[in-house]
């Protein structure tokens, strides 16, 4: 994992190490830390491909505001991976295109 080993100011207190699956591959991360951080530490930068132009997307704000970091977690799409804590055994997938739900909600706008 790409973790910072030495820091002049900080001491990192990581939680329990857990295993999860990303696109069929087993990976390790720390329980309770955001999914996006765990994926990045495993070298995963692409979290989704966009609907129209199939462009790769990673996270951007990491505080839950930009919705750039959607992944599919245990079958549920549009999960903001930057603020969703990692759990043992989670099955995470790269999201392709829009998930199914949020469009319906948005269409109610007008």
């Amino acid at each position, binding site marked *: *994992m*790409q*973790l*910072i080993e*030495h*820091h*002049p*100011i*900080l001491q*990192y207190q*990581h939680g329990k190490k857990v295993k999860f699956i990303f696109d069929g591959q087993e990976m390790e991360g*720390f329980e*309770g*830390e*955001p999914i996006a*951080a765990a994926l*990045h*530490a495993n070298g995963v*930068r*692409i*979290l989704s491909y966009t609907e129209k132009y199939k*462009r*790769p*997307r*990673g*996270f*951007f*704000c*990491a*505080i*839950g*505001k*930009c919705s*750039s970091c959607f992944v599919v977690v245990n079958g*549920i799409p549009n*999960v*903001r991976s*930057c*603020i*969703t*804590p990692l759990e043992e055994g989670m099955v995470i997938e790269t999201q392709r295109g829009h998930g199914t739900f949020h469009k319906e909600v948005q269409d109610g706008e007008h």
Partner: protein
Amino acid sequence: MNTDLLVIGGGPAGLCAALEASSFGCKVVIVDESLSLGGQLIKQTHKFFGSSKEFAGTRGIEIARLLTQEIMNKKDNIEVFLNTTAVGYYADEKTVTCMKSEQDFFSVNPKKIVIATGALEKLLPFVGNDLPGVYGAGAVQTLMNVYGVVPGKRVLMIGAGNIGLIVTYQLLQAGVDVAGIVEYAPRIGGYWVHAAKIRRLGVPIYLRHTIKKALGSSWVEGAIIQAVNEKGEWYGEEKRIDCDVICLAVGLSPTCELLWQAGCEMNYVPELSGYVPKRDETMRTTHPDIWVAGDASGIEEASSAMIEGKIAGLSVAHSLGRVDDSSFKNKLGEYWQELDLLRGGETAAKIRNGVKKVLVKSSEDSSMNIQYCAQSKSQVQVIQDQDFCSGVLPEKMVESITPPLELWSRKKGGLVVIECPQSIPCDPCHTSCPTGAILPFKNINDLPKIDYSKCSGCALCVASCPGLACFVIDLTEDEKAAIKLPYEMFPRPNIGEEVECLNRKGEVVAIGKVIRVQEPRKDKTVVVHVTVPKELAMQIRAIRVMKHG
């Protein structure tokens, strides 16, 4: 769920609002969408500016810890929901709907609401700006400072405001290479001392440049930058920068959706970085049950966010009849005095103007005699020098910071040299000095003034100054000068070790020898004593440990 007060956002503003209101017996619910309390503070590894009376000289993470502890001590009155987003305000039912863990859904019916939702990173339009690897500065900070994940190998920073400058320094601390900082304006926007810190470690700042393109097909593999003229047109040659992360630090905008939804009257105020609600001096918006505090009310900084939070909490308690009128007015007056002090300096002129545009007088306040947004009288001198504008002290200014030679050359232990030429709200140099050599500040925005006859060379100021702008130089040896300088990198040098000595632009100008390493404040800023050639004493301002082995 019913409660007296719902605080949306658990950053410094929200936490202070909650603490203040609960201190008057209000029942408070705090919701925050992140995984811990503290907001932006949990990623700030640097020491904060501001008044020592508040938290100046303390690292952001430490402030977050202290505030969270206080909240935990008030468990009876304050209930906290983390990983919980306030998703909507439904005016008819006066209900806030919240979503926990992206799944569970509940609603809160509070009597009053404080919106302290902080800010969101601004985007910049350029080719490839949506590639993985183009990250907001806050995201980079979260990744490395909260979760200890390496954000990348080499970062290009866009924006030389305080955030861009600070995050650059933090990247260096985490051992990540920074290719440079690109800044559209002809001068850095952040505090000068923050720029000086990274310039002396060799990071270039490209003024009047901007990013044109992120290179790469799956993720960032480089960037194209180019100079711009006064009209904003491209000119000159394109430069290719190798990097795997492009970090955007081009400003924050207040998070205002809930305020719009609630029908608060909003104004676009460029000085406060976006749409912000009109508010009275108690931070109450035009909606009678909704208050605002912190970055959501206009982008500023943590110290003012905390005071705004306290004001909002106090005023909520007052509106619920938990505080009597006279203590309310007294406290409000005190808080405003603190705010005015913070906003008194040269760098806060913008904030003062912005706040004036949205501050409306409340009806209940006619009897009060408080001067909101008082102007300070400090004279602002704008220095145009090219080096100065990017955080390097120009040759011609060195004399003005040089101690008187006849005293200095004989003074065992050395004398202090302070490189802090810009008026900012900050005073730990004075408060840390045990001898009174750094004179008392009349206004927290004053530049430090020195009585050299009192300086003992103890270097306590060196360890305390959040701008890393204090040095002590001893000239009493024959050929060598000893410099005591602040050091916050990894690894720490050992006594007797040879280190590279860097000038204000980060160029290696000598090899020095470490003679002592101390940590006077036990807060991880060490003071390294290094001997250097005497003629370079007023040039060397940083050291770098040479690669071991």
